[in-house]
């Protein structure tokens, strides 16, 4: 009897084990598919020119940082340093600005009932309906009029405006999930609305703010279209710099990939460090 039971139990267990194995294989293949480009970028950046073009590919080689040195300090006369700095400035400033403005707007939409609240929220979302390229020319003319061509401010303002809708819609749900009594308790305890926002609401939606911050900074860091149209030398960001690589002097693959690695690093580091908040943030709204 008990033997019978054991057999019956063993069968589905074996089946589920087989299924799990299949899952792992698929996941592994998918991971290889995703990671392979990164592998190529990183190894190419570490090879010398001969190894880069060798066929069959050289799997084992003496890693060199020469490409990084060239990319950072020599290439194109000044290296990539300025552009890295430009990217950091525009990404950092636009991320902070969109989080500050966006969280306030999201709180207002979540907590106050006013006429046209839904329409306002929809309008905010609708700012992302058209493809960005539709705005390039008018945006260019506006920036030109404001005398902001090739400045950090131009990019910061544009990225902020493009990111706000995402921040607002993401955080609105987070703020709405805070039990209203917590804020009412604070009102009775003697706090003003703005104090409640900073001291209670913002700390409670911290996972959401981190999630929004990561998404927004990835967008700003990688944005190419507006940066290429609106900047030339002063405020040019890494993606634009990267795209200009091929024209300058043939294709310097090693240095090109070195800049690619440099472009990858900061944002990957941020995402990696914050990933545990990220996961919590993306599920917070759903489960409660």
């Amino acid at each position: 009897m008990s033997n019978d039971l054991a057999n019956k139990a063993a069968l589905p267990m074996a089946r589920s084990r087989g299924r799990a194995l299949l899952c792992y294989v698929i996941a592994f293949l998918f991971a290889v598919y995703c990671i392979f480009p990164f592998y190529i970028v990183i190894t190419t950046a570490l090879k010398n020119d001969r190894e880069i073009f060798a066929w069959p590919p050289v799997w084992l080689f003496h890693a060199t940082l020469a490409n990084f040195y060239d990319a950072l300090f020599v290439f194109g006369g000044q290296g990539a340093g300025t552009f890295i700095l430009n990217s950091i400035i525009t990404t950092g400033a636009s991320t902070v600005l969109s989080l500050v403005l966006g969280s306030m707007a999201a709180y207002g939409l979540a907590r106050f009932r006013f006429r046209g609240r839904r329409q306002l929220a929809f309008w905010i979302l609708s700012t992302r309906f058209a493809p960005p390229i539709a705005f390039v020319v008018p945006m260019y003319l506006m920036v030109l009029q404001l005398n902001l061509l090739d400045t950090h401010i131009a990019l910061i303002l544009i990225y902020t405006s493009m990111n706000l809708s995402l921040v607002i819609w993401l955080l609105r749900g987070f703020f709405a999930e805070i039990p209203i009594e917590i804020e009412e308790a604070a009102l009775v305890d003697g706090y003003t609305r703005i104090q409640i926002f900073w001291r209670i609401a913002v700390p409670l939606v911290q996972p959401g703010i981190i999630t929004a911050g990561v998404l927004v900074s990835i967008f700003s860091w990688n944005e190419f279209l507006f940066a290429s149209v609106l900047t030339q030398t002063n405020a040019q960001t890494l993606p634009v710099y990267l795209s200009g690589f091929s024209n300058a002097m043939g294709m310097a693959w090693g240095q090109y990939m070195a800049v690619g690695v440099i472009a990858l690093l900061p944002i990957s580091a941020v995402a990696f460090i914050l990933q545990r908040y990220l996961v919590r943030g993306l599920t917070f709204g759903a489960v409660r």
Partner: protein
Amino acid sequence: MPTIEFKAVSKVYADGTHAVRDLSLFVQNREFLCILGPSGCGKSSTLRMLAGLESITSGELLVDGIRVNEVPARQRDMAMVFENYALYPHLDVFANIAMPLSAKGIAKSEIRRRVEEIAEVLKLQGQMRQQPRTLSGGQRQRVALGRALIREPRIFLMDEPLGHLEAYMRVELRSEIRRLHEERSATTVYITHDQEEAGAVADRIVVMEQGRVQQSGRLTDLIDSPTNRFVASFISEWPINMLPATVTTNGGRTALCVGEARPALTDCQAAVLSGVAGESLELGLRPEDVELVPPGGPGDLPGRVIVVEPQGGMAVIVIETSVGRLNAIAETERTPNVGALIGVSFPPGRVHVFKPDGSNLFARDPAASKG
């Protein structure tokens, strides 16, 4: 000294819900007032208007005789305890209790001293560095009480503070709340839907239903002399028996007819009833007031026992009569057998007679107890 007065206060929400209608209520200094009622009766809206969390649609709210309708919540100097505790989840117990003091910008050392004092009163010393989510329900509500107490407010507001707690915890904490009220000589407004809890803590109970005050008084007043049908059935340990009744007058003699029964009346009661002869009335008699007598007594209602449910030392006895079923409570050893024929007697002081509009004809001076 804090007194609270509602003057014809109404609350209508944006969706048209008329939560509170024409509420007039005076709360004395150092009084412990309970607002009791079923959910949706307007008791929470009343408390929230008092706290300043909800605007007042019409009427006036006075604290110490001064109109506070427009005073924001943070300036009312009231402390509130919420049903779901409403602790700040990202702060530890110490910081939660300290919050009202940090709002006032009080010095750190002073805050520490007072928080520790409160923690001792509420036996929370061991939990000061814990996050709210690691606490039990009882501990959480103690923290919420601590947060309310630390401000030494003039007025305590409690919105079903024990609603989410286990029964034994409720009994323990409610006596604690009463003790703290005495010690602080505060004025307390306490909301509950539990009459036992209300009776245990309150000096006075206000019963609300459909946004209106139905009756106010001590629990015994509400039980002995309910002003209307709603209070009679809501404030009742066991559901009150309601039997159809009429009044006949025959040669100057007024009689109350409940089926075959003619309950004895006092002169005063007879005088009141003579005015409603012929109307279809309802007689209310609480199960604990039902007197079971041998069948055949004059004026009694004959019936047959159909169910006996023992409950500890008492038993609920269901009796079938010509005017419907009624329940009686009797000590277990004096319980009749199922199927036995018995008489139901109506003790004159315990009978309530309700008019079709619900008002109790036998209530003692309903005007005096109208809040």
